[in-house]
């Protein structure tokens, strides 16, 4: 090969390895927390907001900027909504040692 490795190959390497990381990490998630898992994966997949920022950032007005602002808004709904609802759910998962406020008293 006379040329340097295309950046695409590096990105592909990161992608494939990250799939393996995801595979092992997700299998270790307890089934009781599968709903919070979906809520949080939903929130973090909104990191797509970085693409929206690049499109919404330049001066002036263009079609791309409008798409960017629309994507920003959608992603913001998801980021805030996803993390807040995950937090709300996780706050409910209490063990026996720490009964939730207003709930039953430990006998």
């Amino acid at each position: 090969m006379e040329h340097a490795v295309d950046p695409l190959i590096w990105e592909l390497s990161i992608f494939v390895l990250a799939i393996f990381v995801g595979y092992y990490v997700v299998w270790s998630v307890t089934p009781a927390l599968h709903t919070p898992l979906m809520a949080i994966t939903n929130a973090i997949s909104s990191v797509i907001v970085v693409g929206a920022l690049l499109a919404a950032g330049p001066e002036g007005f263009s079609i791309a900027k409008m798409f960017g602002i629309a994507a920003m808004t959608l992603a913001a709904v998801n980021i805030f909504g996803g993390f807040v609802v995950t937090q709300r759910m996780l706050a409910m998962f209490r063990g026996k040692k720490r009964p939730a406020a207003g709930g039953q008293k430990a006998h």
Partner: protein
Amino acid sequence: MSANLTALAYLVASVLFVLALRGLSSPTAARRGNMMGIAGMAIAVIATVVNPQIVSYEWIVAAIVVGGAIGTFIARKIEMSAMPQLVAGFHSLVGLAAVFVAAAAFNAPESFGILDEAGAIRLASRIEMALGAVIGAITFSGSIVAFAKLQELVSGNPVQFKGQHLLNLAIGVVIVVLVAMFTNEPVAQWFALFTVLAFVIGVLLIIPIGGADMPVVISMLNSYSGWAAAGIGFTLHNSALIVTGALVGSSGAILSYIMCRAMNRSFVSVILGGFGAESDGPKKAKSDKPVKAGSSEDAAFLLKNAGSVIIVPGYGMAVAQAQHVLAEAAHKLKAQGVRVRYAIHPVAGRMPGHMNVLLAEANVPYEDVQELEEINPDFSNTDVVIVIGANDVTNPAARSDPKSPIFGMPILDVDKAKTVLFIKRSLAPGYAGIDNELFYAPNTMMLFADAKKMMQDIAKEL
């Protein structure tokens, strides 16, 4: 901020996202994990905003304020029983955002640094943005249909018509051809056409899938939203987006697999849909065998005299919002020295883990809530089982009748308990459209009532 520093910031964000998912291995670590997820997102956003080409902030701030306020409001107000439709709704937003970002990248490639020396969009970038747009569009419209079914805006029944799969295949082929044409010559009409067709196929893919297959559908759409994000990540050469997309994509894929396995169905058969359609399955399988019906007093008497009780909740409990009064009754029993636990089938409810969240909402300690493999051996030495809003997941035909459509599906062995209390409105068959022989078993007592009403009456008697 130099490009290297930005890339490092994205790496930190990616690591934090991995840790956020890792935290979900236990409820206590999960709360810390969520904070790491938030930190990762903040780092990714800040690292992008300080980029010198971002100079106009007013719209960005406005979008974050408006979107953030809407998201926070919804997340605070939503009922826990409505979590499946909320997640489906959120998936649709990720999908649409991916389409918009792809469209923006196509319209202003210079902002994304994806032009080659000749000033055209790079070949790889064309493929990547097309993939991001197509998967994003499928995620969007598919999630909208799933949302509508879960919210009962449309019927949850499978919608099928002749030549459905052939039509889907044809549209799929046309999309592939259009993407190839776009890759060859990136003009706006190809982009618009394959995006529109992807919206259409997203709808067509989800309409034949029935309500109780929703756990698979939601997991699958979760996976799609990840792949869409990864596609956009390749377009933007952004490692945080690629890593996150891969994590989310594999997470959704694993959940789909777990759900399919719990139903003993292949992924393909779920996708092709139609399961539980009124047209197929043995119709009117209802037998005229005698059933033993009981009252809340009978149930309370049995429960008070039991040493151990296992509660099996299903989607019906969520619909009736019976989790709070159920937990109250369980608490009264525990105070009287009865051992009470909950058994969760993986596909109980409309999304993975749905029942666990509802029970947690009702202040049930998570140690009391057990998974199928964990608790199944214990049914044979349990005095009373309460089945509330579940049906097919307890049907012994899955073990014994090779002709049954659910044969081979792992079930909760509630029939092995001394007494089974079955709270149900009627003897109507469950989602699979088959009769449950458990209704007629000598050790079963049917409690015909609304789940919430019946549990209230039982709780009063305890």
